[in-house]
């Protein structure tokens, strides 16, 4: 076994009884684990259930099944458990949950995928249940020790108290006994009793991120480790025909080359040596017709496909006759490019094949898929694959894919040493899995009173699900029409159609997925409709949202907070956008001016309703994070294809915003409470582009219908 973290070995010897909660089954400790790690000192650390352990010194370690990629799950999810646990927050530590255990123990950590803004949104109820169950075990253990009824005891700040006799005991003192007890029918708190949820607690992972000690995938260091770099075919879909290893064999440090279908990895003593040799390696490629494609060709093909009928996604009434009798019809086409994720940490994975099995170290959003992919490729049973999920240097969807794992495992099978594969920034950016390209056509008909009497929308989108081999036989990829098929405006009749159109590039989840492109097109066209109806854009939206009081409230709050009706200096304007995704409503107003042909974004005001907040400080950071990510995409983001090759390969050509371009961001919460716990990692993003573009129209009097904005030379009208 490699040097795993100390905690990896510290498994409790206590047996945990299972099955006390509906759909919350805690299996007994796996006995095979003890044979693997040898005898464990009795009662050093007590495991109350799969989600948490308590040390004699009261240290509480909470396992987090979602991956920390900046969104704060290593803090927010422990807060949910610790709240129910009545823990003293100062005692709480957090770590990623062990995916190998989840695989061996029938999915004990339930959902381990990180995506869909789902950490709080999806896992909150069972995390509360886990915390409450542990709390009741601790109370029961204290009561047994004292010979009193658990009903007479209560827990707070990491202690159990017996009020009548004024006795108390710390969690650390009774955890050993508590771990051996079982409790049934545990109830979670009412929201008014929350003690941690709702507080702006500092992040638990901040201290290790200010002194370089935080361990990201790329920071894993193992004895005798080699490094690998890769050269992929510059045209996606192209294959290796031949390569001349002899040309690099004598370069410093070079150990071997490993052939993949679409590229060659070079292994060396250091990564610099590996990458230098990989770049120098002569490779002959087999490239098909995809080597003749250009972005311009794609654009023309997508726009042409807008004219085809498409597959019906939603149809209410008959739009054709309604359009025929319309007094006025407006029609617009929108277009968005492929986008790279460009996480700060280029993709990497460390792998080691040993006699016992396979060990992996990486930061992944989908540890189960990573483990299973590795297991399959290496021919090693899943339970014999150990995966240490490190911190992720950004993910944004990209780190859910297993491509990097598959390459690392193929290399590990060829060498009797641990190997760390790192894709250079250039490989990371050129090697696919982009936010899909899409084209969208909208048409709206108005009557004499300027009321909307017909609405149609046809989208042509590169399908992520088709790239993943998932069935989209009915012609619709639901992720491609997010925000279009469920748009909230009451236009009737309406018709929404879709066409799947894939190119040789590959696509993947990108922060906010379909909403990232669809909110742009949709909310810009809504502005065009408002203009056609000669109505204020916020008023126009409200007019068609009568049955959505939650959206109306958000818009009204935004109107006020953004100073919508206040005058701005000449050459400055405000634009609005509204969107709902991942259970959260967000609306934004952007304040923008035009300088030297470019958009200058001064201020973005957001109003967000995600129902409830776990940690307002992290939540605000997530909204700002979505805005900044969306701003880079709106202003600069594009992947350009020439002869089938991706031209942008680093931050000099794939521009992202810097400190000097950051607008003032104001986030206002309009929380409706109740059972609504919407996601926050993504909903800050979709409105950014349309809010800016709608503001720019007021300044330039020209509609921007494609991204990025930097493709246009902007001028005041």
């Amino acid at each position, binding site marked *: 076994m490699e040097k795993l973290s100390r905690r990896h070995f510290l498994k409790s010897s206590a047996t945990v009884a299972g099955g006390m909660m509906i759909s919350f089954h805690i299996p007994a400790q796996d006995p095979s684990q003890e044979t693997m790690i040898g005898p464990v000192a009795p009662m050093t650390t007590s495991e109350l259930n799969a989600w948490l352990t308590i040390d004699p010194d009261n240290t509480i370690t909470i396992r987090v099944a979602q991956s920390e990629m900046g969104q704060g799950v290593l803090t927010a999810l422990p807060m949910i458990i610790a709240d129910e646990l009545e823990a003293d927050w100062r005692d709480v530590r957090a770590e990623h949950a062990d995916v190998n255990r989840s695989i061996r123990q029938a999915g004990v950590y339930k959902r381990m995928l990180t995506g869909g803004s789902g950490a709080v949104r999806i896992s909150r109820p069972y995390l509360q249940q886990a915390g409450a169950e542990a709390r009741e075990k601790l109370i029961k253990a204290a009561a047994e020790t004292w010979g009193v009824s658990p009903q007479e005891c209560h827990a707070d700040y990491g202690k159990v108290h017996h009020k009548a006799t004024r006795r108390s005991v710390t969690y650390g003192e009774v955890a050993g006994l508590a771990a051996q007890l079982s409790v049934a029918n545990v109830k979670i708190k009412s929201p008014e009793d929350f003690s941690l949820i709702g507080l702006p607690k500092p992040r638990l992972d901040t201290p290790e991120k200010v002194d*370089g000690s935080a361990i990201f995938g790329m920071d894993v260091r193992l004895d005798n480790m080699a490094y690998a770099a890769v050269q992929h075919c510059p045209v996606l879909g192209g294959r290796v025909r031949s390569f001349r290893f002899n040309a690099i064999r004598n370069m410093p440090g070079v150990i071997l080359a490993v052939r993949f279908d679409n590229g060659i990895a070079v292994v060396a003593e250091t990564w*610099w040596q590996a990458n230098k040799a990989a770049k120098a390696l002569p490779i002959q490629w087999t490239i098909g017709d995809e080597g003749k494609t250009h972005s311009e060709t794609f654009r023309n093909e997508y726009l042409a496909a807008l004219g085809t009928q498409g597959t019906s996604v939603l149809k209410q009434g008959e739009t054709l006759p309604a359009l025929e009798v319309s007094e006025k019809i407006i029609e617009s086409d929108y277009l968005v490019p492929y986008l790279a994720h460009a996480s*700060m940490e280029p993709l990497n994975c460390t792998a080691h094949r040993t006699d016992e099995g396979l060990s992996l170290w990486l930061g992944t959003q989908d540890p189960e898929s990573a483990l299973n992919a590795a297991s399959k490729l290496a021919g090693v049973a899943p339970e014999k694959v150990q995966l240490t999920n490190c911190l992720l240097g950004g993910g944004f969807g990209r780190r859910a894919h297993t491509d990097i794992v598959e390459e690392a495992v193929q290399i590990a099978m060829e060498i009797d040493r641990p190997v760390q594969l790192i894709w250079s920034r250039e490989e990371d950016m050129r090697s696919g899995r982009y936010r899909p390209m899409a084209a969208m056509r909208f048409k709206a008909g108005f009557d004499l009173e300027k009321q909307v009497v017909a609405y149609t929308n046809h989208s042509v989108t590169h399908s992520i699900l088709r790239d993943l081999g998932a069935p989209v036989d009915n012609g619709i990829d639901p992720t491609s029409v997010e925000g279009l098929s469920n748009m909230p405006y009451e236009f009737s009749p309406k018709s929404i159609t879709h066409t799947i159109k894939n190119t040789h590039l590959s696509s993947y989840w990108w922060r906010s997925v379909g909403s990232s492109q669809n909110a742009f097109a949709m909310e810009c066209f809504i502005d065009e409709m408002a203009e056609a109806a000669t109505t204020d854009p916020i008023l126009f939206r409200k007019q068609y949202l009568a049955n959505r009081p939650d959206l109306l409230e958000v818009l009204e709050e935004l109107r006020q907070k953004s100073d919508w009706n206040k005058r701005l200096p000449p050459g400055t304007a405000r634009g609005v956008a509204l969107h709902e995704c991942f259970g959260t409503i967000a609306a934004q107003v952007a304040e923008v001016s035009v300088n030297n042909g470019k958009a200058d974004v001064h201020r973005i005001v957001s109003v967000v309703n995600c129902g409830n907040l776990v940690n307002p400080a992290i939540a605000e950071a997530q909204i700002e994070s979505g805005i*900044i990510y969306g701003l880079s995409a709106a202003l600069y983001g594009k992947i350009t294809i020439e002869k089938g090759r991706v031209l942008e390969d*680093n931050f000099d050509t794939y521009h992202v915003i810097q400190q000097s371009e950051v607008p003032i961001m104001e986030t206002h919460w309009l929380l409706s409470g109740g059972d609504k716990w919407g996601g926050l990692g993504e909903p800050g993003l979709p409105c950014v582009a349309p809010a800016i573009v709608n503001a720019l129209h007021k300044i330039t009097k020209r509609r921007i219908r494609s991204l990025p904005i930097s493709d246009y030379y902007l001028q005041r009208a």
Partner: protein
Amino acid sequence: MVRIKVNGEFHELEVELDTPLLWVLRDHLNLTGTKYGCGIAQCGACTVHLNGTPSRSCSIPVSGVLQVDIVTIEGLSSDKSHPVQKAWIKEDVPQCGYCQSGQIMAAVALLEKNQNPSDSDIDNAMTNICRCGTYTRIRKAIHSVANVSGSKT
């Protein structure tokens, strides 16, 4: 064999002279706090101090730093007590955290040269990229070290 001075200690290493300082730090000295982000001095994740000047170690060959005092994030303090580290903790700046070593090194160098940087001084000095968008808190943390309340101009 090269001899370099990192965080006050001398190291003698077998390494090709064209190896960028970044990879010497990471792969030879296991100082992994300094990050690889782009390799072309664009993103700043690899920022270290060379005789006090913030420099992008991915694009500087080790042969160019033989007579230089090199300070990495690990050399700022042994206990997170550097005023900039403390400000980063107080403002809870990091999200994913990958770029923050470089951001902090850039901020330390800025504040050593200019104890009271204006917003435009910060704009000019802090060209490091952050994909999580922690920029607002970075600005706030720098101002808090300078003990001046700043507002975006």
